[in-house]
């Protein structure tokens, strides 16, 4: 009987210490998320300037570029899956991977051969555990991606897109990442990055206003040649930043729930321990009373 009580007390102690860990992780995620959101905001002027420039070139000239034309010489398509390095973020990585799997299924049904690239240890271990080959992998710093890593990823993927079909060239590039809508809602999202779809006239202009006639130096082709890789790099960087903010938000929420669950457990075990103690006391009393009765009679 006394053992019962001790077991409960032990469980309360271990749950308390787990609770402290969850609380600490929640606070860490909460403190980093502000920084991650600032980084998303800070990267906006760059991508906006690039988008405007690309659409200016597209509107004012009729040049074509390998990065905007569809390839039909290969059926291989690249899929970049963006996940986190560490777990403890609820369903964050799992739902990104599920979305990627769904996309891969769709692409396979369409008669294409998906080639998977992964960032974040969760995706890497998911695919390597299942013995599926990864064409490229990047791990480390998934919650604070650097410009250099984004550039490296973009350059690898651009090289794959520009490579000839017999040297592992791919015809399309899809990116699966988690879009950060707000603190409570992050949704996995798929975008097709390559070949680029250039949206003309992103900026709404007045009817009377004449769109500026740009002078391109040295030539529209050369400008596009420099712009498009930068654009792809910036898009991938933005995806990584969004994913990082989502990861931190998901982790904060998951750890918050875990802390609450730990509190619930502690409360439950405290009740059980009290019950066990009461039961023990009752039993002792009845033993004493019946002992005394036996002696008296």
């Amino acid at each position, binding site marked *: 009987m006394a053992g019962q009580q001790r077991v409960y007390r032990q469980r309360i102690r271990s749950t308390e210490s787990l609770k402290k860990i969850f609380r600490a992780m929640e606070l860490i995620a909460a403190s980093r998320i502000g920084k991650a959101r600032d*980084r998303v905001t*800070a*990267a906006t*002027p*760059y991508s906006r*300037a*690039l988008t*405007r*420039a690309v659409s*200016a*070139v597209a509107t004012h000239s009729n040049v074509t570029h390998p990065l905007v034309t569809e390839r039909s010489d290969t059926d291989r398509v690249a899929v970049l899956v963006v996940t986190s390095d560490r777990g403890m973020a609820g369903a964050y990585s799992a739902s990104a991977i599920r979305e990627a799997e769904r996309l891969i299924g769709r692409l396979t049904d369409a008669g294409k051969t998906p080639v998977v690239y992964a960032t974040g240890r969760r995706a890497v271990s998911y695919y390597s555990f299942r013995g599926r080959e990864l064409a490229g992998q990047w791990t480390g710093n998934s919650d604070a991606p650097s*410009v250099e890593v*984004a550039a490296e990823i973009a350059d690898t993927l651009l090289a794959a897109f520009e490579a000839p079909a017999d040297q592992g060239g791919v015809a399309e590039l899809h990116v699966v990442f988690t879009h950060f809508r707000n603190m409570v809602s992050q949704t996995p999202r798929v975008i097709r990055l390559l070949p680029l779809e250039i949206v003309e006239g992103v900026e709404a202009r007045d009817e009377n206003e004449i769109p*500026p*006639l*740009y*002078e*391109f*130096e*040295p030539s529209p082709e*050369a*400008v596009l040649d*420099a*712009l498009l890789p*930068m654009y792809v*790099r*910036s898009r991938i*960087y933005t995806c990584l930043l969004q994913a990082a903010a989502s990861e931190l938000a998901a982790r904060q929420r998951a750890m918050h729930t875990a802390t609450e669950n730990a509190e619930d457990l502690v409360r439950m075990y405290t009740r059980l321990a009290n019950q066990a103690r009461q039961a023990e006391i009752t039993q002792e009393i009845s033993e004493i009373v019946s002992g005394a009765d036996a002696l008296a009679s």
Partner: protein
Amino acid sequence: MADIEVELVATAGKLWSGTARMVSAKAGEGEIGILAGHEPVLSVLQPGEVRVFPVGGGEPKRWQVEGGFLSFDSNHLTIVADNVVEGARPATSPATH
């Protein structure tokens, strides 16, 4: 004469913005100087120095860029650059021009 609005942005964020009298940079076909009222231009940047001359005169602000592009229309100039270093050209490279 009107001034031009200048924005200098890098991948990680906006580095500088303000008004200027003139901006000079190393464009696709050589040095380009932009004053207010310049025709709209979209140019590749070559590795070199970007100089922003303040409205009231005085010493220009300088940045070293390794590439990127600039776009100018209706007196608004956006310089998008990779690997920007603020300041004049390092003393080690000989100033031959």
